[in-house]
């Protein structure tokens, strides 16, 4: 490829041309232009003369100062040898030549020591187990199945079984509670909470929770090891209606038959009898039958009569 250079191009490339940084095609094209254009040729000659004059000068200076006479090599080798010999000792001597450095060094050592002690104490304080410390959180997370990090039950585990009679006494009727709880590795119940509703009867619920805490379980096991697991515990108090109800009716009937009170109306006066003074509440106070069981009924009747 032959370049067709204008004078501007040539001026831009002239230095690279002189420095031998152009491709062969560019060189040829540029030389062609220099042959034709006297202005560019003049600029080129100026550049050449700078270079040649500088080289002349350098040659002159070099002739003035024969390097061989300077014995640089001998000096360098000698000093290297000496340095090698005395390097460590010289360095140590240098350190102690200026006592400022020694004091600074001692100061730095003391400061470092204080820093180390300080950071060690901080680390020591940090490693003590506090429930909200990072170390504690990490150790809890690192040990699934511990009492603080209970597992969810899955099919690979055996579920915890109640060791004691798992009945909780509830006086309230017709009520269901869902409790969330953790069964620990030792089989104890922890962290029981009512989760299905807001407890309305606090005393009742507290009593139930106390019962729940007293329960004892055989802990859940996973691959033979006891693990803490979360569980949901349903407590329901259900009234079963059946023959029991009928018995009470029969019993009441029987009781009523036994304890029927005397009629409340005035007794018929026998014709031969002297009219007696009118009694006040005497018939009600006088038990008709001496049985104790009827007294309650009487008292009830008396209360109702008033």
């Amino acid at each position, binding site marked *: 490829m032959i370049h067709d250079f204008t004078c501007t191009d040539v001026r831009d490339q002239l*230095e*690279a041309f002189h*420095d*031998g*940084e152009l491709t062969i095609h560019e060189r040829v094209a540029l030389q062609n232009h220099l042959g034709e254009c006297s202005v560019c040729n003049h600029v080129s000659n*100026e*550049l050449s*003369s*700078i*270079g*040649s*004059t*500088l*080289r*002349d*000068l*350098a*040659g*002159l*200076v*070099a*002739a*003035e*100062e024969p*390097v061989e006479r*300077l014995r*640089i*090599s001998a*000096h*360098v*080798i000698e*000093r*290297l*040898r000496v*340095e*090698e010999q005395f390097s460590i000792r010289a360095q140590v001597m240098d350190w102690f030549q200026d006592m400022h450095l020694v004091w600074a060094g001692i100061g730095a050592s003391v400061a470092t020591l204080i820093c180390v002690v300080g950071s060690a104490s901080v680390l020591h304080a940090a490693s003590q187990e506090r429930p909200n410390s990072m170390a504690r959180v990490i150790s809890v997370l690192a040990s699934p199945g511990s009492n603080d990090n209970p597992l969810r039950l899955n099919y690979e585990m055996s579920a915890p079984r109640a060791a004691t009679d798992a009945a909780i006494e509830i006086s309230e009727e017709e009520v269901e509670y869902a409790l969330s709880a953790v069964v620990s590795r030792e089989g104890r119940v922890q962290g029981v909470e009512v989760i299905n509703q807001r407890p309305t009867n606090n005393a009742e619920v507290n009593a139930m929770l106390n019962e729940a805490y007293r329960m004892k379980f055989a802990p859940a096991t996973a691959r033979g090891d006891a693990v803490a697991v979360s569980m949901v515990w349903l407590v329901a108090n259900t009234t079963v209606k059946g023959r029991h109800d009928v018995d009470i009716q029969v019993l009441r009937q029987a009781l009523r038959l036994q304890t029927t009170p005397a009629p409340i109306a005035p007794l018929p006066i026998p014709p031969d009898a002297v009219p007696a003074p009118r009694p006040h509440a005497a018939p009600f106070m006088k038990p008709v039958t001496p049985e104790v069981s009827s007294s309650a009924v009487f008292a009830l009747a008396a209360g109702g009569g008033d």
Partner: protein
Amino acid sequence: MKDAGALGWVEVGHHEAALIARCAAREPTACAELVSGHERMVFQLALHLLGDRDEALDLSQEVFFSVFRTIHKFRGQSALKTWIYRICINQARNRQRWWRRRHKADQVSLDQHVEAQGDLRQPGDDTAPDRAYARKQLAERLWLALDHLPFDQRTVIVLREIDGLSYEEIAFSLGVAIGTVKSRLTRARQTLRDELREVRP
């Protein structure tokens, strides 16, 4: 942009690699060989950059100490020569900062060398006395102008015109991009050319 530091051990050559390995092991003959092989180059560059013989001699020794101290870090990222140039330039740059400040007044100008020599070696058949005088005048002016150039421009023009390094080698020696080398060269040449035009309008 072309990276100036991307050459390999191939560039260095087997003999040089072996020499470097022996120098790293502090073998005295190898060290002597390395120094004697490069002392002329280093001393002349130092002389051109600093313009003082004693200073240049001192700098040359320092350069070789620095070379031996760091030669175990040399991984053939350039030719050994270019690497030594780089060390030399860095040290000269550090030195000329304070040296220029302190000794500016009694600095010996190198045109004394020219005067002492009396005449310049003439290229070709140019032997007429008046032409010779003109060339001497020119050389003196040019040397002064070179001496007054900023350090970076002086370094670039010396490496290019006297030591004959390529742009890439100069870029590595100075630790700059090739574009920077080109622009510094242009500026240095502009200054020197103005100087030339004053001498022979």
